[in-house]
């Protein structure tokens, strides 16, 4: 991966793809709230897009259920390099309150590699923005 190309690519607005792996929706509504004018995640230059094929950053909520595991792995595979994964919330970080349950993987990183963890149940929009902005700064910094 050519670092110069990466830095150039990173000066454009990274496209975020949001995926729910069986979450209770708490993290999802705070991710959505982060997009609304009060918090305005987009001012950091991040845009929420639907398709993984054009995504740069995969924003994942939820404890990964068995039903969804293949799908999240596949979506991760479909994303072009360079790609980054953010685990939003306690469930995707470790399984959260559902750790040990028979239908839930112990955290997103037991299924795909994760670059950033934003803890909280759910994390507030400020925390989500903070986490994504920190990841973007790290990417841009090379």
């Amino acid at each position, binding site marked *: 991966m050519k670092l110069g190309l990466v830095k150039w690519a990173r000066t454009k607005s990274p496209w975020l793809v949001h995926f729910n792996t069986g979450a209770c929706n708490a993290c999802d509504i705070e991710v959505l709230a982060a997009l609304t004018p009060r918090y305005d995640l987009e001012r950091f230059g991040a845009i929420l897009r639907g398709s993984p094929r054009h995504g740069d950053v995969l924003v994942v909520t939820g404890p990964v259920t*068995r039903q969804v*595991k293949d799908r999240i792995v596949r979506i991760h595979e479909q994303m072009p390099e360079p790609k980054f994964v953010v685990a939003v919330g306690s469930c995707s970080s470790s399984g959260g309150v559902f750790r040990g349950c*028979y239908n*839930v*993987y*112990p955290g997103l*990183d037991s*299924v795909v590699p994760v670059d950033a963890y934003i803890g909280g149940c759910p994390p507030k929009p400020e925390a989500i923005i903070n986490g994504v902005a920190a990841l973007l700064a790290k990417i841009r910094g090379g």
Partner: protein
Amino acid sequence: MSAPPEKYLAEEIKRVFGDRVLELKTPRKRRLFVTVNPGDYKEFMKYLAETMRITHISTMTGFDAGGKIEVMPHLFGLGVELTVRTSVPKDKPELDSVTDIYPGAVLYEREVHDLLGVIFKGHPDLSRLVLPEEWPEGVYPLRKDYKAQQPEPVRKG
């Protein structure tokens, strides 16, 4: 009405079903629990739906009671939250489906089948509802002998 609704309904049920009611209790206002044998279960549910016009089924709870599995539809009508209980043997857990009387029960019976293995005779579609397709046959997570095991990680975290 002079009697509280749960008392009124209790009296009616006792009057019609007599000693086919194995147990009946009203632990608080608007709560009634009635236990019947599986052989009387469908007739009892028909009576509740058609004679007493109790048409709302909220859900069905299944419970592993050791040698038996309890099936408990929870109904609401006449101002009473009524729980019906019947038990089937664990080694032959079959019970009449009530989906012809309570169409709203279709997903609740399916769920009890998925998680506890009760077979509801006459149910239109007992395919999996909440467990994944690859979940092994004959393994019922809500049975007491099943010990919850989280899935094996695909990679090291």
